[in-house]
């Protein structure tokens, strides 16, 4: 998996107490395990089955995903701004490989 390129959009300077809108996108086929190749062999399932948003070390939002999530999974969710620091976003693929990215926020 060469270029899954996680992308996230986070407000840089939220006010304390603000509920931040967070958008994330990662490139991934999300192979369902239902499709067959030209020879009739089942293409094995390979999806990102879990997503986690960690705010200064505390998980604040998670998602368990199944093959019913579209390719290139996109999320929009909310996190309350309480202190400056770092948001980490972690995607885990079947087989255990993870993709992650971090964003710094300055809470005023």
């Amino acid at each position: 998996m060469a270029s899954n390129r996680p992308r996230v959009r986070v407000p840089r300077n939220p006010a304390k107490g603000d509920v931040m809108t967070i958008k994330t996108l990662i490139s991934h086929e999300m192979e369902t395990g239902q499709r067959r190749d030209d020879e009739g062999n089942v293409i094995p399932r390979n999806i990102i089955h879990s997503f986690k948003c960690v705010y200064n070390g505390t998980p604040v939002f998670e998602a368990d995903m199944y093959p019913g999530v579209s390719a290139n999974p996109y999320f929009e969710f909310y996190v309350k701004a309480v202190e400056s620091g770092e948001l980490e976003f972690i995607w885990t693929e079947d087989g255990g490989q993870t993709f992650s990215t971090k964003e710094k926020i300055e809470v005023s």
Partner: protein
Amino acid sequence: MKGIIQGRGLTRRHMLSGAAMGTVALAGVSVWSRTAKATRAEAMAAIKERVGGKEPQASSKIELDVPEIAENGSTVPMGVRVDSPMTDEDHVKAVHVMATKNPDPEIISFKFTPMSGRANASTRMRLAETQNVIAVAEMSDGSTVMTQKEVKVTIGGCGG
């Protein structure tokens, strides 16, 4: 979004997906509909299992935001919103989303915390054909509420 997964190995599958991801995704959905299909009873059983054996009550506290008609079953926008103060004492712990006629009825489980601020999240899902989408919310007090909406799928199903 097209071409986003280009540049992998040169297997036929990858070349296909690089060349026309949308088309491949569609093909995937049509293959789906020829394979096993969940029944509504199975979907409901899966939901009950998720929420600890309880029968969720239909409620207007939970809202499912899906299109009435989805032209492309491979990417259908879906959002859920639950009316909750999201405090430590009273918040939504999780929202599970299911599609009754997908081969695998479970789509996603969103897990919230009081730090979420709002019990509101959205993503994009696959629907094999016209069917009901069900969302069940688990509250911090152990209660569960549900709602459902039908989505008509024009392409990607089997003539739905």
